[in-house]
Every structure is written in C-alpha cells, then in structure tokens.
C-alpha cells in the first residue's frame, strides 16, 4: 500500500470507534492449538482486556491460513484485519487507546527491548521445543497440528510446517543447540524478567503495559501446559515473583468473565492438559 493510501486507512481506522463484534481468531483450542500460538493469542487477549476493549474469541481450524501474515492470532475489527501483537498494539493506538503513553522515552526504550527479549528467547524456545525436540514432536505436535484434517493431509501439513520451522531455526543459529542449552536460555530470560519486575506489581510500576500482556501470555501458557516433561514450567516456577505476577493478572483480567477465554478459572493447581 502506498503511503497515501495507508494514511487514509489509518484515518478511517481512527475515525471509527471500537465495535462490539470485534473477533479474535485462533486455532481450535482443545485439539489443535500449540504452545507458541496459544501464548501469542493469550498475550493479545490480555492486552485487549487491559485496554478494556471487548473481544470474542473465535476458533477456526484454518486460522493460520486466514491470517494476513500467516501468524496467529489476528483480529477482525470493522473491516480491518490485523495480525500479531506489534501491529495490533499500533492499530489500537490509532483508535486512541494506549497503555504506554505514561512512560518516558527511556522507559519506552526498555519496554521495547524487553518485548524483543521475550520474542527472541521465550518464543523461539517454545518453537524449538515443539518442532525440533523429537519426543515432543512425535507425541504432541504432529497429532495436534493436523488433527482437523483427514489423513494424509494432516501428516503432510505437519511435516511441511516442521521443515519450515527447522529451516528458520538453522538460519538464526538455534539448530545446533541442545535441549539443555535451550532450557538454560529460558532460565536466563526468566531471570532477567524476574529481576526487572522485582517486587512491583507490573513491569512499569502501577500500570500494566503491552509488555505485561506479552509476558503474561507466554508464562501463563508455559505454566499451564502439560508437555512430555515438566522442565520448561519448572524453570519458570523457580521465580516466585513471576508466578505471582501471572496469578495477579489472571485474577484481575480474566476471572469472572464467562466468555470463551483461554484461561479457565478452575483450580489453579490442576494443570490444563493440552494432550489429546
């Protein structure tokens, strides 16, 4: 889109208020969605909750193909479709809602840097675990990823996706890492986040920002997803302020809503299983 057209569309977007029927699309929650996609989706939902914007979650088997960038989740607002947390934050900002307006320049720099840290380390570690670790791939990823489709399409799609993710891992240099090294990186990332959070309720003291939404999305999903081993969630549980942070956001923004949200209020100790 040329610059003029894009400015025009942004104006249009800004002009319309947030509609009641905004929808967020993701894959099927019980059978199909994977760890990394669930985390991204939860992060967007948390962000929209924090902005007090109503959204309903729609589960479709082909959500990935519907998305304009190929990644989930994406939101359908009015006649616009926006995918991934970064562009969604900007889109919401154009509509006049922003969580990070109260931050000064240095804090904004830090917020962006920490968001990149989460994307760079946590998200990549999740992708590694589900697509490059053979045990997890066999037992969880392959059965789940193609589950809405008949054989042989389900196998073909999973192998295709696996090949694509492995190529990307090779390009960024993660292909040579062992599982222990990846878990070590996750631990480092959690340590950095824990130190940054300290004893504050949110990362930038009183008000939640998109960084809080992103961290919540990933950590909560890691804590509540049952994989072949518990090592990943153990790494997060080592940091008590992070688990307290997740609980706090869950209670504040997700409890008491009877819509189809990804967090279930039922006993926090019972892990929600994503195994088939």
């Amino acid at each position, binding site marked *: 889109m*040329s*610059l003029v057209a894009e400015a025009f569309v942004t104006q249009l977007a800004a002009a319309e208020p947030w509609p009641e029927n905004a929808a967020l699309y993701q894959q099927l929650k019980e059978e199909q969605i994977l760890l990394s996609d669930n985390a991204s989706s939860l992060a967007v939902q948390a962000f929209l909750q924090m902005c007090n914007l109503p959204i309903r979650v729609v589960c479709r088997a082909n959500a990935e193909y519907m998305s304009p*960038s*190929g990644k989930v989740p994406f939101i359908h607002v009015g006649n616009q479709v926006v995918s991934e947390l970064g562009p969604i934050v900007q889109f919401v900002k154009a509509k006049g809602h922003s969580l990070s307006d109260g931050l000064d*320049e*240095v804090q*904004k*720099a*830090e917020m*962006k*840097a*920490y968001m*990149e*840290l989460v*994307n*760079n*380390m946590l998200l990549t570690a999740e992708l590694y675990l589900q697509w490059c670790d053979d045990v997890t791939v066999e037992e969880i990823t392959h059965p789940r990823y193609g589950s809405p489709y008949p054989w042989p399409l389900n196998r073909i799609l999973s192998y295709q996706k696996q090949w694509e993710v492995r*190529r*990307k891992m090779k*390009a*960024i*240099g993660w292909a040579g890492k062992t599982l222990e090294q990846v878990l070590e990186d996750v631990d*480092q*990332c959690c*340590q*950095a*986040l824990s*130190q*940054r959070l*300290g004893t504050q309720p949110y990362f930038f003291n009183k008000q939640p920002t998109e960084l809080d939404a992103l961290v919540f999305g990933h950590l909560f999903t890691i804590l509540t997803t049952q994989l072949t081993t518990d090592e990943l969630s153990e790494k997060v549980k080592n940091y008590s302020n992070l688990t307290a942070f997740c609980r706090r956001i869950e209670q504040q923004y997700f409890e008491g809503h009877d819509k189809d949200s990804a967090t279930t209020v039922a006993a926090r100790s019972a892990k929600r299983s994503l195994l088939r």
Partner: protein
Amino acid sequence: MAAPMELFCWAGGWGLPSVDPDCLAVLTYARFTGAPLKVHRVTSPWRSPSGRLPALKTQDEGTISKMQQIITHLRKQKYNADYDLSATQGADTLAFVSLLEEKLLPVLIHTFWVDAKNYVEHTRKWYTETIPFPLNFFLPNCMHKQHLERLQLMWGDSYMEDEEKLEKELYRDARECLTLLSQRLGSQKFFFGDSPASLDAFVFSRLAPLLKAKLPNGKLQQHLKSLQNLCNYCTSILSLYFPWDGGEPPASVPRAAGADGGDTEEDPHKRRNQLLSVLVGLAAMLGYAFLSGIVSIQRGGTGLAGRQPITLEEEEEEEEE
C-alpha cells in the same frame, strides 16, 4: 591463567579493526577486559581453524566459533566485563542485545549485503579485493546468498519482494531502534556508567561499520549520523581502544605497529608470488622463442653475433637515405 588464546577474525577496513560485526564484537570485548589474545587478521575463512570467522583457538577446549560462545568462554576465563553490573543492569543487557539482534542486525545485513547498490559498489568490491585468489571469485557471492536466505527466512517472502514495504516498515523499525539506543545512552560515556560492559561491545560492533563505511545508498547511515551522541560514542571507543587501527587503508601497506604478527605473514608470500609469476612469464616467452626458432643458439655464439651485421646493414641503409 591459560596460555594466550588465538583469535582469527576478518581483516580490517574502512577505518575499523575488523569489518565483520561479530568479529568486531569479540575484538572489542577482549580489549575492554584486557584479555591476552593473539589476533590473526585473515582475509579468508579458509585460514581459520574451524573454517568460519570469528574463531577462537584455545588450549583445552579446541576451537570455538560463535560470537556468543567465545564471549562466554572469555567470561569463564575470568575476563568479565559485566562484573560490576547490578542484576537489573544485567537484565537490561540481555533485553537490549535482543532488541539489536531482532531489529537492527537484519536491517544492517540487508544494507550491506542485499541492497543492490551497496552490495555491488561497496561490499562485494571490498571483499573481492581483499580475499586472495581464487576464493575471491565465488566467496562473496556465496556469502551474499547465505545472508539473503537468512533474511528471507526471518522476514518472509512478502517483505523480500516488496521493496517499498520493506523500506517503510523494517527500516523504520531500525531507525527507531537507533533512536532508542541514543535515548538510553543519553550523555553517558558508556551504557552503564564510566566503564565499558559487554553491551557496549555489542552496540559498538553493530554501529561502527554502519558509521564508517562509505555506502552509496546510506539512508540508515544518515539517520545514525544525525544521532550525535552515538557517533561520539563510536569514535571515542575507536580512539581509546583501537588507536593504531583507525584510519588505515585496507591496501597492503604493511602494518608497522608490530603487535599483529599475522599481517606480515601476507607480504613475503605476495612478493614471492609476484617474483614467481614474472619468472614464469619470462620462461614461457623464452621457451616459445627457442621452440619456434625465432631465436637459436648455435655453438660458438655465432647466432647472436650474426644478428649484429643485420642491424648494421639497416643502419647503413638509413644513412644512405
């Protein structure tokens, strides 16, 4: 303390000790911590023990090839630039390094290696001139393809095909990243006070090539030059830690500051090669001359003497005219 370790890295150019960002990061970190390294500035990856650059050859752990692993190894050997940092500062280091790697480094790679004008007129030219024969015919192209593939996998096809979108969004993010760095640095000497840390090594290694290279298509470069504190930061690190490297041309002027033994290895070979090629040329000409009979040596040297009367006759003819 281990015996001195050997570091193999790309040669210097454009006023920098090394042109490759990863090699520069390792060099800078070593300078910051005072680690005793024997530096070999090589002009082709085939000279390094592991086939890739940068490479650190240690006594007990073999050869380490990735920048992060090299820095971790140096830390383990007690050369730790982050010793004085608080926990929050350590966390900030991780975060800013991630920001650089995600937002700035891919765009830098694009500027140097994929952008058509820059690649052809600047990067490829430098590498072709520096890498020795016969590698210089295919190695730069190989590196270009590698970088292109990496960017394609990271960004997806939609960005690679649509130049305008790429320029608008990704370069905008990179410019924003530079501005954020500038704001974070403020008016301090280094990112965490008065002594340099590993984050400074990272930031310097990404910014310095962008600042120093003379790129024909330099929009990102112009943005960096407009951020005065970052420019001062880079030049002060260069002058403080690499005083005799800055400003030297990449041509084969033998480096008089004898700390780098690796450079003088190149010259004798070059002279020898030149001499050899001249000798081979002469031998080929003489051999052809003898074989085809243009010149023949007869016993007693009359062949050579026989030529002279011919020339004398010619001169007489000329005089007559």
